[in-house]
């Protein structure tokens, strides 16, 4: 039996297994980033029913903010993350106040929310372009050694740590949404705004708090993007990945955003290995078209045509 197992686990099989395992791990860590973007995006979508493109802008500003405070005060990774998350929460609150408070009070058409949010996204991106110019920045190497070696296969330490932190963040978010009073309020608001008001909940406060949570998620996602890629103002456009993820998962569905993000990450790594990095957007696009044709409601969503 032992000999049989030994011959079955040949060197070649082992190598192939490790190759796929490595790919899966890369995909999971990329997917975790997408999932965090998608969660922040979906939170806003679920309460206000519009796609919040300013999320990307908040991500970029937070990523640069983290770079600046890290440089100035020489913080470690955890400290930097916490401070930036707090900053992201405040920033999102400001963005909400400038962009959406007035529209919400007037019950404006959903398209105005779209326009307002995408304009704010571009505004935040350009504030970064003006202050830092379009050159690239990079975080210092937080993790030494950057790679660990197992049997000739290298695993990136930062990927593992990001995967771990993402898991913690996602669990924290789930706890917030399903076990606290604020979470109940947010979920109730996502079902029906008017009824929630009648139940004695201050809608403005809940909306502001939801934006703060989503801003903190954007900050985490921004730092991860900065660690994973490099810092540049167009990181803004990664909100688009979060949008695809949340649509594939089912728009407005929290757990759907999680599944969608991880699926998108794993798929992109697979496409990358099969067709090369340049063609990844093409295959992602074709895949999402086919997916929407087959299952328009997403992985976990229920499809309803709602009133405007």
């Amino acid at each position, binding site marked *: 039996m032992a000999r049989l197992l030994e011959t079955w686990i040949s060197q070649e099989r082992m190598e192939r297994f490790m190759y796929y395992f490595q790919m899966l791990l890369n995909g999971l860590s990329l997917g975790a980033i997408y999932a965090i973007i998608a969660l922040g995006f979906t939170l806003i979508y679920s309460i206000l029913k519009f796609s919040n493109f300013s999320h990307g802008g908040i991500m970029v500003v937070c990523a640069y903010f983290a770079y600046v405070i890290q440089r100035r005060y020489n913080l470690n990774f955890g400290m930097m993350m916490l401070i930036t998350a707090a900053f992201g929460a405040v920033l999102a609150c400001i963005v909400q106040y400038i962009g959406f408070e007035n*529209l919400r009070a*007037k019950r404006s058409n959903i*398209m105005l929310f779209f*326009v307002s949010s995408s*304009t704010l996204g571009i*505004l935040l991106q350009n504030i970064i372009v*003006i202050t830092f110019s379009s050159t690239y920045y990079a975080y210092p190497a937080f993790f030494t050694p950057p790679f660990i070696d197992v049997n000739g296969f290298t695993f990136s330490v930062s990927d593992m740590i990001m995967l771990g932190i993402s898991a913690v963040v996602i669990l924290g978010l789930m706890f917030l949404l399903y076990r606290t009073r604020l979470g109940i309020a947010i979920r109730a608001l996502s079902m029906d705004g008017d009824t929630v008001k009648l139940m004695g909940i201050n809608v403005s406060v809940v909306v502001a708090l939801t934006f703060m949570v989503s801003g903190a998620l954007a900050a985490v996602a921004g730092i991860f993007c900065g660690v994973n890629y490099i810092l540049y103002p167009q990181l803004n456009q990664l909100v*688009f990945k979060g949008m695809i993820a949340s649509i594939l998962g089912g*728009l407005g569905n929290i757990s759907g955003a999680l599944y969608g993000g991880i699926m998108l990450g794993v798929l992109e790594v697979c496409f990358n290995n099969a067709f090369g990095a340049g063609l990844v957007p093409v295959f992602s*696009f074709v895949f999402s078209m086919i997916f929407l044709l087959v299952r328009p409601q997403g992985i976990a969503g229920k499809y309803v045509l709602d009133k405007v």
Partner: protein
Amino acid sequence: MSYYSAVMTSAIVNIIAILSMYTLMGLTGIFSMGQAAFMCVGAYATGMLAIHSHLPMAVIVVLSILAGMVCALLVGFPVVKLRRDYIAMITMGFGEAIVALLNNMSNITGGANGINNIPRKMTLWLGVIILALILVITMNFKRSKYGRYCIAVKNDELSAAAMGINVARVKLTAFVFASGITALAGSLLAYTTTYVEPTAFGFTKSIDWISFVFVGGVNSLTGTLLSGMIFCTLPEILRFADMYRIIAQCAIVLLVVNFLPNGLFGEHEFTDAIAAIRKAAKNRKRGNL
């Protein structure tokens, strides 16, 4: 070409693209985040045909428009039945996919270098004539049966469907129609600038167009035209302000969205003013009698 006529020509090309966005956003309420990709399709079709074939300009332009419309049909078909956010997502994905494809098929499209040496056949007067033509077509589209369907769909899809309007079909029609105009703008762009490259058609451009339409007025062709004229020539006037230009533009859009939710012109058209004057004149005549 003198400096001013060059500025005016490129402004006209952009205004044509903004008019297409008006049909999408202002009339139908489709939020297309990747409309610039159809401009890209038109520009590349023109570029490739102009370099590799000896067809006359008119034929090339028509073929480019057709290319844009076919792409719109393929992209729009799966998503018109769904909510607006899906169209935003798919069009944005289409934009990214097109840029990636153009960058990677370097043997046909020239990759990141783009296509150079397209003959410059665009003149200011040709631009003015085409713009006037597009204006008339869009105005008639707005007044036609389809235009009214579009407005109904924008305001409420459910009640539009209840009135017997085939919502998905109306959306698809508007999308294909508008993308044809965008592709025309792309084709003219290729003839104006004499080169095309993939990075010029990002989603920032589409968002810019959307905000111009909103500043002008959600339902007003006149407003769209006016804001297009202002915002397309503003960059040249404000060249010294460089980066702050975009900040100013965003600030204007935010102010308009917050305090004038219907845009500068709202639902009013230039023709309304003429009609009002005519009516007043008629009344005065009657009073004289």
